[in-house]
């Protein structure tokens, strides 16, 4: 994929060169505008940007990951989206997809980073192990070293997937490799979290296109996630939500009620605590998403989702208190101790304060005697 296209091309020129018609391009621009959450009046602006803006070079680093994010990414439902990512945005380096290998690939990356210093987008997939560089060494260099080098010249960093956003499965208890998310290592660059295990392909593409078209980072929430995709809980856009408000709950995900479309809240659905676009964008060309397919959301785009099991139960385990110690169990012990303490104290009071109470009673009895008359 090296140097088949000139880097100076605009997105539009590039798309036309690839053999797509202007109509395809317009469709693509419209789809992307919708993905980014803008109204239709913005289409012309997106078109204009894609026609005039130079393509942005992208370096995609893979660390401790399963390549699931890449897999999701290349399955964007719109063919142009996939093309956009793989060719149009000039993906200069990605371990799993580039044609070049070995020293050539590394040289190409170095070259691109030097040429586009301060301009390229760095996409990071996977968590970064810190305990031992042996856990993830690429071309003889540790993941931390590679990340620091690539981040140095990046205009912005996109953390694709839960691993690079939060640590993900790699950083789950007991985190044997000491894995950390990107923002634990890189402090001086804008980092956009695009969490999910994996994230929805259109969401990933949407973030890239937003930066490509407008040259600015999208609006971010307090956890640095793009608001247009992570502004709502899965729960808030879930098609089963009316059942939640109506109090129609399925006890388990394989029950008759679950089939009827009852809310999976009691089956441990993490929708109410998970910020993602699954409910609106859905997966695989808008075919479905986990809840629609009958399985409760596991909250894969949330921090620490892997440690917040079991997935099919509402309450999660108390960290560090054993597998079975849920909050309610600990709570019952606290409450039970209070009740037992009060009961013991009540008995002890009657013993220890016996004299005091008896004396008071005697005085009272005397008063009672005097009041006759």
């Amino acid at each position, binding site marked *: 994929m090296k140097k088949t296209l000139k880097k100076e091309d605009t997105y539009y020129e590039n798309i036309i060169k690839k053999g797509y018609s202007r109509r395809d391009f317009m469709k693509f621009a419209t789809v992307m505008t919708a993905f980014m959450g803008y109204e239709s009046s913005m289409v012309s602006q997106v078109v204009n940007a894609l026609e005039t803006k130079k393509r942005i070079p992208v370096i995609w680093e893979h660390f401790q990951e399963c390549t699931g994010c890449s897999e999701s990414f290349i399955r964007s439902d719109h063919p142009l989206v996939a093309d956009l990512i793989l060719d149009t945005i000039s993906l200069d380096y990605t371990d799993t997809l580039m044609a070049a290998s070995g020293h050539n690939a590394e040289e190409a990356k170095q070259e691109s980073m030097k040429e586009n210093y301060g301009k390229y987008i760095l996409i990071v997939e996977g968590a970064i192990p810190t305990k031992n560089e042996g856990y993830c060494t690429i071309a003889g260099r540790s993941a931390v070293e590679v990340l620091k080098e690539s981040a140095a010249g990046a205009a912005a960093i996109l953390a694709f997937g839960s691993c690079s956003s939060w640590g993900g499965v790699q950083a789950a208890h007991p985190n044997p490799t000491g894995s950390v998310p990107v923002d634990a290592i890189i402090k001086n660059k804008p980092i956009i979290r695009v969490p999910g295990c994996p994230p929805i392909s259109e969401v990933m593409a949407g973030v890239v296109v937003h930066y490509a078209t407008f040259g600015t980072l999208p609006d971010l929430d307090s956890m640095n996630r793009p608001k247009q995709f992570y502004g709502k809980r899965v729960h808030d856009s879930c098609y089963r939500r009316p059942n939640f408000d109506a109090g*129609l709950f399925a006890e388990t995900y394989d029950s008759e009620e679950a089939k009827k479309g009852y809310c999976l809240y009691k089956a441990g659905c993490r929708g109410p605590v998970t910020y993602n676009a699954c409910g609106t964008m859905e997966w695989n060309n808008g075919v479905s998403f986990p809840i629609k397919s009958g399985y409760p959301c596991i909250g894969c785009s949330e921090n620490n989702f892997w440690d917040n099991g079991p997935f099919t139960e509402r309450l999660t385990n108390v960290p560090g208190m054993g597998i079975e110690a849920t909050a*309610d169990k600990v709570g019952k012990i606290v409450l039970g101790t*209070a009740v037992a303490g009060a009961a013991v104290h009540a008995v002890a009071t009657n013993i220890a304060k016996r004299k005091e109470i008896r004396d008071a009673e005697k005085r009272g009895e005397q008063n009672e005697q005097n009041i006759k008359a």
Partner: protein
Amino acid sequence: MTTTTCNYKRVYVWELPVRIFHWITAFSIVILVITGFIIADPPAINANVEATNSYWFGYIRAIHLITAVVLVASSVFRLYWSIVGNQFANWKNFIPYTKKGIQNIIHVLKVDILLMGDRDHDLRNISIGHNYLAAFSYFLMGLLFILQVSTGFALMADTSSWWLPKMFSWVVPLFGGDILVRYIHHFSTWIFMAFAVIHIYLVLFHDYVEARGEASAMISGFKFVRLERFRVIKEKFEEIKGKIVAVESDEEH
């Protein structure tokens, strides 16, 4: 001692706003705990109805949120009253930062909690309003209440357009996600329940042992205070030539 009866005076300890606040708090906590547990683990009523025809779970959540707002408003008022209210309502009672406060806590721990004998029989040790340990426990519950309110509003913030919940949207990033925030909110409920048990028990304990109207004081506002106690205070105040606590009796009890 055993043959002489004591004389008591009726003292207006809990002003009406304090009592109203107390009962709003009490009923709110009951409502919040009940609705909270229903929200945490709703009963699966698999009636043969369509979602369109029912909204009970939505109402439960509405009750939970409205009650929370009422409790917050009432607490804000109570904070104001801790400045303008009487000496027993004052905020200074709730933080044991004085030597007197710490001594009182030690006394209460010894005599009321560990049930040790009271050798001195110093009348000043008998509290008229809150004892310092109880008051400090309310202060701690106040802190827990702040945690409960912040986590609750933080969970509400993202779907609310109101500024009040929005004010707490920083809490979620602080704990790293809704899951942990929800968790803290859920677990704190148990501490409120345990507190309620201990609080009610100790009220009954004081009423039983001391018989000074501990329980009914939160209804009438009055507590009974030994006559000698007034003299102690009076002497103390006369020493510093300050104002004298009203001892003129217009009522005899």
